């Protein structure tokens, strides 16, 4: 195994007053290798965004804070690093794209200025060189006739085009890791297809590792090789995409896969997971999925199961399936 590009260990994030914190991210481990595409899925509020923001220490502080854990990038500890140093890694080594293309661009700056700024902050270049690079980037992300669009403002672009500009900003300095937080959720399906294609394209061309966050397993399946499933602030399953789809180990993942309607199978009835998604931090002990789980046992209510390994690339946090596989492997 090569050295990981990004390694998150035991990450915990809390909200609220220090005295009575609400823990919304609980002991998250996450690893991305160079050039790898990793996905995080989970329902709304499961902590996907907070996890990704924590990597660049962009979680709004206050009210939230990183309470425990370590995040290393190429062996350097991002959490221990002074902010000024971290700043130089932002955008250059690790870049981010956000969910809302409509609001993630500064409305009063031209497209050129915004992409140019990303370059300027990390590379010394003449004005002309920078402009050439901006044009090149716009072309890379498929904006037609980039020269004439340099002076345009974000409001003159459609949602899809704005997301392309965001991608251009993100890849401006050839980052080693691109974190994309639900980059296509706000887009229409036909536009989403365009953007996903673009991401795959960019990854191929620049050999960037990707951390893609989505609540849609379909989107992840298009782009990623490995998936983490999050539920109520916990990573409950971590597997390569194939074994996840073929042999999900966590009851939540299983339920999810069966609950998603399909374009092609016509089941007359969808499988339904009972109950509703708990508020992150509302579950103080035991497995967060306990209340909705059809395999639950007494132990589940008491202790949160640790991740157990099912294969070299498949781990899940479930007392029940863990024992089953132990039984099987024994």
């Amino acid at each position, binding site marked *: 195994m090569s050295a990981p590009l990004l390694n998150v260990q035991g990450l915990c994030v809390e909200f609220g007053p220090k005295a009575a914190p609400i823990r919304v991210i609980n002991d998250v481990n996450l690893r991305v290798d160079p050039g790898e595409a990793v996905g995080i899925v989970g329902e709304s509020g499961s902590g996907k965004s907070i996890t990704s923001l924590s990597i660049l220490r962009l979680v709004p502080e206050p009210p939230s804070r990183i309470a425990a854990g370590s995040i290393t990038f190429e062996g350097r500890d991002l959490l221990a690093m002074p902010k000024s140093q971290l*700043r130089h890694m932002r955008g250059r080594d690790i870049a981010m794209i956000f969910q809302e293309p409509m609001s993630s661009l500064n*409305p009063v700056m031209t497209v050129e200025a915004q992409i140019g700024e990303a370059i300027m902050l990390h590379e010394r270049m003449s004005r002309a060189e920078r402009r050439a690079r901006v044009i090149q980037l716009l072309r890379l992300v498929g904006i037609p006739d980039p020269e004439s669009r340099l002076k345009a403002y974000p409001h003159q672009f459609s949602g899809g085009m704005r997301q392309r500009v965001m991608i251009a900003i993100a890849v401006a300095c050839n980052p080693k890791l691109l974190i994309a937080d639900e980059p296509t959720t706000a887009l229409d399906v036909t536009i989403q297809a365009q953007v996903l294609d673009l991401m795959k394209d960019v990854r191929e061309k620049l050999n960037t590792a990707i951390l893609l966050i989505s609540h849609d397993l379909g989107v992840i399946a298009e782009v990623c090789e490995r998936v983490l499933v999050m539920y109520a602030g916990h990573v409950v399953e971590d597997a390569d995409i194939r074994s996840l789809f073929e042999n999900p180990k966590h009851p939540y993942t299983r339920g999810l896969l069966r609950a998603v309607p399909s374009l092609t199978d016509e089941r007359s009835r969808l499988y339904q997971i009972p109950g509703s998604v708990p508020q992150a931090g509302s579950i103080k002990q035991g497995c967060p999925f306990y209340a909705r789980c059809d395999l639950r046992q007494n132990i589940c209510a008491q202790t949160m199961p640790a991740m157990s390994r099912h294969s070299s690339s498949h781990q899940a946090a479930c007392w029940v399936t863990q024992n089953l596989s132990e039984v099987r492997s024994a």
Partner: protein
Amino acid sequence: MARYILVRVLDSIPTILLVLTLVFLAMRILPGDPALAVLGDNAHPETIARFREQFGLNDPLWLQYLNFLRDVFTFDFGNSLVKNAPVATLIANNLPYTLELTLAAMVIGITFGIPLGVMAAVRRNKWQDNGFRVFSLVGYAVPDFYLGAVLLLTFSLSLGWFPINGAGTDFASRMHHIVLPALTLAMLKMAFIGRLTRTSLLEVLGRDYVRTARAKGASERRVVYRHGLRNALLPLSTGLGLSILSTLSGSVAVELVFNRPGIGRLLIEAITERDYPVIQAGVVVFASVVVIVNLLMDLVYVAVDPRIRVQ
């Protein structure tokens, strides 16, 4: 763009007309008789009648209204009933003092208010922020005439640092005279502008594009000034318009306290003296300033907001 400006200018016409009509009607229902105000309590009835005739106070209302409109649009407000001068001259004499005061107060207010607001926003919930919030609350709570009186009594009367009356003649003495009145008004402005800066900056700093800027690796300074303040300026420019106008109206009381010449004092005096032409002109001037400032602020808004500009 040119079209937008034109439309905006045309848009203000009905407003002005409405204001004018209201002014005119208001003047006619004012209690008190200008003839008596001018001629004094012991005036002879014949003298009064002659005066009424001379100033058209006996004409039917609609005729007075038409004359009034004609006068306004030809910038001819006639003669003051009380002072021996054309109203236009009175306005011309007084307006500079009021503008000077408003301007000075705004300059002080903006130069201190914006940085204070930025500081408070950046150091949110730290002592700087709390200190500023206390200042702005108190600044808002103290009535300006009271603050003015306190400053006047302390710095002019007791300490003798500043003059007591008037606005001065040469440049140096004008500057000397304006310090306290301008400071009085500026306190409120500082509180207001600072507060506005703080809230709009805080709001902007929570926006997604600020997160984008941070994710690019921009320094905190750059984030605040280049991305934050630029966008915070949008609501601020509307706020500034309001602030200019409230400074203007605040100058009425301050001019009275510091006994400075100015439109506000002229207007209040004219009201007590029932000097119709001056009241009318004063109100028209205030209304025009209001319309003009709003117009300018709209244009500023257009200039800073590409979403409107580029169209």
